[in-house]
């Protein structure tokens, strides 16, 4: 079973990366860009066929390791 975990900064948390990308894009002449935020995607293949169990296990992975829940949110997406 394949899954994707999206990790994004919580709203209001400073995103230096996004800020720098925004500036760089403007510098390159992409002047329609209004806002940039950067996040992570973690693709995980699981030896698990039960979606409910997979989701629960992914949730635990996020809480324990994949996301820094102090400043980040996460979203889990299961394939198929």
């Amino acid at each position, binding site marked *: 079973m394949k899954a994707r975990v999206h990790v994004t900064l919580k709203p209001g948390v*400073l995103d230096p990366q996004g800020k720098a990308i925004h*500036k760089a894009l403007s510098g390159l002449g992409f002047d329609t860009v209004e806002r940039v935020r950067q996040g992570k995607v973690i693709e995980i293949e699981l030896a698990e066929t039960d979606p409910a169990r997979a989701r629960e296990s992914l949730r635990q992975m996020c809480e324990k390791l994949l996301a820094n829940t102090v*400043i980040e949110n996460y979203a889990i997406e299961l394939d198929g």
Partner: protein
Amino acid sequence: MTAPPPNIVAEHGLSGEEYERILDILGRAPNHLELGIFSVMWSEHCSYKSSKVWLKTLPTTAPWVIHGPGENAGAVDIGGGLAAIFKMESHNHPSFIEPYQGAATGVGGILRDVFTMGARPIANLNALRFGDPNHPKTRHLLAGVVAGIGGYGNCVGVPTVGGEVNFDPGYNGNILVNAMTVGIAPKDRIFTSQASGVGNSIVYTGSKTGRDGIHGATMASAEFGEGAEEKRPTVQVGDPFTEKLLIEACLELMATDAIVAIQDMGAAGLTSSSFEMASKGGLGVELDLDRVPCREDGMTPYEMMLSESQERMLMVLKPGREDLARGVFEKWDLDFAVIGRLTDTGRMVLRMHGETVGDLPIDPLAEAAPEYRRPYEDTPEAPAIAPSAVPAPDDTGAALRRLLGSPDLCSRRWIWEQYDHMVMADTVQRPGGDAAVVRIHGTTRALAITTDCTPRYCQAAPHLGGAQAVAEAWRNLTAVGARPLAVTDNLNFGNPERPAVMGQFAGCVQGIGEACRALEFPVVSGNVSLYNETNGKAIPPTAAIGGVGLIEDLERTADIALKAAGEALVLIGETRGHLGASLYLREVADRREGAPPPVDLAAERRNGDFVRGLIGAGTVTTCHDLSDGGLAVALAEMALAGDLGAQVTPPEDPALPPLHAWLFGEDQARYLVTVPTSEPVLEAARRAGVPAVRIGTTGGDALTLPGGQPIFVAELRAAHETWLPAYMGETPAD
């Protein structure tokens, strides 16, 4: 303006009595914004209300001191028209909540304190305390803090050259992250926050203001409870790239005549920076909050004034220099806005959307800031432990290996290799020695820098512990051949409202003061962090001392690495074999007790001056001060650094303590040096009244201690280098 309900007052951490005082000052009830401002300005963090009475007792002057406490950082004259500017500051609570960002923003904050004064930062250090290695959070906190310090310091391009680390269950719920920065500025171009010139523009630059860290300053002053996790969203994220731009832009503008006063926005952000500038200049300010560069839409005046967004600066410019300044900051892609002006009203007036949203008198607020002489209880005296009352080890070599591999003494390589300790290409002595040595760029002179504190001594005997921390810092500077100049301190304690904690605080400060006076080593800056406790349990008192010294000639310095076989090992200072509160007692005999070693400041000074003289004369080839683990550990560290062995024979002396006490005792004021021939040095010591004795010879690939088998240096290295990487889960193949 409507009065805030009582629960709101309490949530702002203000006592009923303090609130009464606010009513008196304003002659009316404060609105929410004003209450917020009082709350941060009168927080422990900003007002030093519990500590001030004691801090005033510290010696702060010397002929070479340019600025003592009271400025963003202390400044001392280092000759050649230059000043060294330095300070240490804690970021304990934020680092416990989010170790990476907490530590990173700690580094960012202390860097700003230093470059605000016109100095280019040249070195960072960090004094860290973690809980029991077996505590479930320790590994994660250590990994995050180290990565955060490196992540920030490496990116801004300031070398992280030293520090210290201890582990103790007493820090399980409150780790300590104390960051120190040293910078260099032209002596005649030091900038302060004292505003002047009614009508002058107040300028905001750096990053935009967001909603982060609102009430960070009050959080840093509140004891942790079970609900601490809920405070998480107040964590700030650091942007070291912007900080680097800010350093370059500020230094570029500082080379012109545009700046009247400048102040970084640290704790309590825009509030305390604008307040401080006006208050020091005896003036008023008027801020137009519509002009504050904001990261988010719809920010309220309260949020803007209390935000602790990082990488921001406030300046007062000379009339007509706005365009020049704007040009510099725009070149560096930083926000720039004239947000207000200085007035002669003595008031802080805040406007938004054409309305006055806050109006506070500046002096009364500063002068009426609470100041408490809190009740205190002296720490009961710890019993002295006679050397003979401590059992000898079964095997001296095994005891030494054990000490060298213990969490408090093992190699910190795993940490400092994550720090760029060489950027700027002036690091002459890298981490691992007694003090870092950083060359003054373009010269053959250098600064020596160290941080020191032995919390187990402070806990057993606060007064002595405070003095010992200063003495050890002074000794570490001396051991590299530097003339110690001044210190910055970072006083980390529990809840000052508890008399026992206040007693620890008072004791440590008195000890620091005494040692600083005796060693002519004044305190020029510092920071106090109180309420480091969880569920009523305070941390061990931790009075971290950052010391800075001057090396006049890089050809005349010493390091700890043994250089050549056949040299004489000479022990300087008196050895009584003091094992109370020692690491031997803790790690080998498993006992945490006893009075720490006495600190004789006169002996400290005499022995240190003697050793510095030897280094200056080029007499010694190697020098190491003795501290944790005593003679045996110091010698092992020298052997490891030089990859060379030594043979030790104790002197024939009827007063010699038991062998294990001689080897592992932690008597103060001692150094171990190597010299090609011992006689001249012993003779000079006799003349100077300094105890000195030859204890052995360098050579071979093993360390031979009395009463034990030779231990290969390679074996010692394995013991020394293994613990930390293994603890952090690293396998050699990684």
